[in-house]
């Protein structure tokens, strides 16, 4: 039984003189008790509408939302037992930072000492102890975002909703705060849903990530699963930094397996044994498939694909090498430094076991083997 259950939720925005916008379509989603879930997608994908429907700031057009077995979609926001941190922070300007955070505890009628203790604890976690007596206008954007986070997390709620919770944080603090907040949520068994367009943030914090596009839930799985078993081309190219290399190939049967070729320059052979029966029957009917390989899986310096180096950039902890072959750009990422200079010809290795294969409809036919 899930803590939060969305069933067949639709959201349609109608405004006069404009065609209706179908922001969320037939969304089914179950979030378990104590789970941290990210709603990830580009702007306009329906992630924020979903969050606002759960919080109660938007009506659902159809469908139901249940929180801890209570139907909540018709309740006003205040009675849903959810805490929320807003993207625009929404701090109360006439209150100090401390009062802003304590304000969230008003309804719980705690003793004064308990309020102070809780505020201090959360302030330490997000490193705002030294600005507790400041007013919101006097602190930086990053600090305001941390206050807004603290105000949401300090409450006792059944569900925590965070809208772009860390986008404005100072880069030096981001990694530490992600770890601390994830630790806090896990320690207290808090259930949280957050919206983000930044996949780094989604994979860092979330147990599972719901990838949305065009109002449709594309895939809802752990970060590992999204990377190793993307359901379709959209997820494959959206998740992963830098994005997956995708190549259009021609498919032919050969030696009991398959031959995937790109023009006359590049070809891969995938033995039949490496592909399960269902996928084989699908592939037998196709002539063109798209092949994907993660930049991190492209071997540099070994292999049989000769590429002309377009750029080679060392970022301190990894090299990004872009190579051109038959007019296509291939990106390789490796943790070591690469000596090649632009214009040089080097080898890239694209091992068949690392290849994802996608059909014409975009759905994945065969995933890379997990190494």
């Amino acid at each position, binding site marked *: 039984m899930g803590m939060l259950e969305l069933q067949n939720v639709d959201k349609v925005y109608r405004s006069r003189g404009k065609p209706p916008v179908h922001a969320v379509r037939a969304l089914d989603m179950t979030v378990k008790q104590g789970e941290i879930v990210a709603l990830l997608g580009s702007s306009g994908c329906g992630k924020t509408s979903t969050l606002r429907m759960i919080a109660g700031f938007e009506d659902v057009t159809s469908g139901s939302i249940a929180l801890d077995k209570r139907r909540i979609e018709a309740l006003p926001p205040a009675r849903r037992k959810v805490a929320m941190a807003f993207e625009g922070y929404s701090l109360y300007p006439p209150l100090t930072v401390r009062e802003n955070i304590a304000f969230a505890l008003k309804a719980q009628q705690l003793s004064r000492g308990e309020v102070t203790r809780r505020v201090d604890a959360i302030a330490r976690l997000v490193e705002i102890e030294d600005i507790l007596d400041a007013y919101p206008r006097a602190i930086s954007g990053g600090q305001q975002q941390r206050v807004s986070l603290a105000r949401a997390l300090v409450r006792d709620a059944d569900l925590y909703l965070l809208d772009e919770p860390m986008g404005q944080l100072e880069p030096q603090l981001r990694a530490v705060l992600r770890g601390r907040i994830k630790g806090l949520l896990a320690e207290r068994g808090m259930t949280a849903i957050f919206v983000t367009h930044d996949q780094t943030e989604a994979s860092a914090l979330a147990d599972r990530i719901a990838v949305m596009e065009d109002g449709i839930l594309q895939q809802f799985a752990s970060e590992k699963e999204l990377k190793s078993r993307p359901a379709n081309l959209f997820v494959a190219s959206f998740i992963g*930094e830098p994005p997956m290399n995708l190549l259009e190939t021609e498919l032919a049967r050969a030696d009991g397996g398959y031959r995937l070729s790109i023009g006359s320059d590049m070809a891969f052979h995938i033995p039949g044994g490496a592909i399960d029966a269902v996928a084989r029957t699908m592939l037998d009917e196709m002539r063109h498939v798209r092949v994907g390989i993660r930049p991190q899986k492209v071997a540099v310096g070994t292999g049989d694909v000769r590429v002309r180096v377009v750029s080679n*950039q060392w970022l301190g902890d990894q090299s990004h090498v872009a190579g051109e072959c038959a007019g296509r750009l291939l990106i390789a990422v490796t943790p070591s430094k690469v000596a090649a200079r632009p214009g040089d010809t080097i080898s890239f290795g694209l091992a068949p076991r690392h290849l994802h294969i996608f059909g014409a409809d975009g759905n994945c036919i065969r995933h890379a083997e997990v190494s």
Partner: protein
Amino acid sequence: MARLELSSVGKAFGSVRCADNLSLAVESGEIVAVFGPSGSGKTVLLRMIAGMFEPDEGDILVGGQSIVGAPPERRGIGMAFQNFALFPHMSARDNIASGLRAKGAGGDIAAKVASISSLLKIGHVLDHRPRELSNGQKQRTALARALIGNPEVLLLDDPLRNVDAKLRYEMRLELPSLLRRGSASVLYVTQDYREAMAIADRIAVLIEGRLVQVARPEEIYAKPASVAVARLFGDPSINLAEVTPVAEHGALFADIAGTRVRLDTGDREPIDLGACWVGVRPDDLVISHAPGDDAIPARVVAVTPMHEKAVLLLRFSDGAEWLAALPSTTTVADADDNVFVRFAAEASLLFDRATGVRIGLPHRRQAA
């Protein structure tokens, strides 16, 4: 082509010093990234060169000639802006061609526009107005406008700030060769250390109006001039601990959360030092379940995957927190595990606690 030189440039707005004794030379054909946290004076520096403000003191030279006091249109500068700054009432073509027309370049304008726009892959949108362009196309149009006149100096003010992650990545690969095309002296402002490292030949680190370090990217990453620079390069950023290192048996030791760890001295002489910061990059930490005298015991607070790495938030017995970045293929530890942290002595950096400056130890005495 001409070299860009700043000599002791200073500028203050009221009591805020945005540029403090800045000296920097950019050779022709070189890309120098100006990198620093927001509010460090990067944009002001660029705007002084472009002629939107004049410096209070010092001189700015292009090809040996001072350009201070000259109006912007006579400085021979091409610039790309963070907000693109396209002319909204002109087509992309007119935007790109405006500089050539002002100079009266004559008949070859069309050919030049065609060549630069095919290079930047915007040939198909030349007749569109800026508001009809996607963010990526706007940004490419702005770049084309800056590049087309083959200016002696190219200034880029965080040009990738307002495009999405995927486009930013693509441009990061393309930009260096584009910028080197005309052998201009290029100053490239950015707030993203990866972008700076990817694009630039040298990076000028600007903090609070001062140039703290100017060096090649690898050098800044490996040998940051100060603790502030070290914190700016690397994501997650460098781990720091307060220590007072002591020299013993020809090596340098420090106490971190109750564990005596050996620090790097390279080929230098270990000596007792005063209050220091020791810095170790998250990538250089080794995590295991094997205890030992040389290992710092820690509890894993959380595991946060990041760019094909697993980032572990570690809490030491004294409450200090460090981050470790491990290849995500190795699942060493989970949240709440008790682990042991080690690092190679060579991976450690030492900074003076009072000044933040990196400590270079004296050379080893030659054996007689």
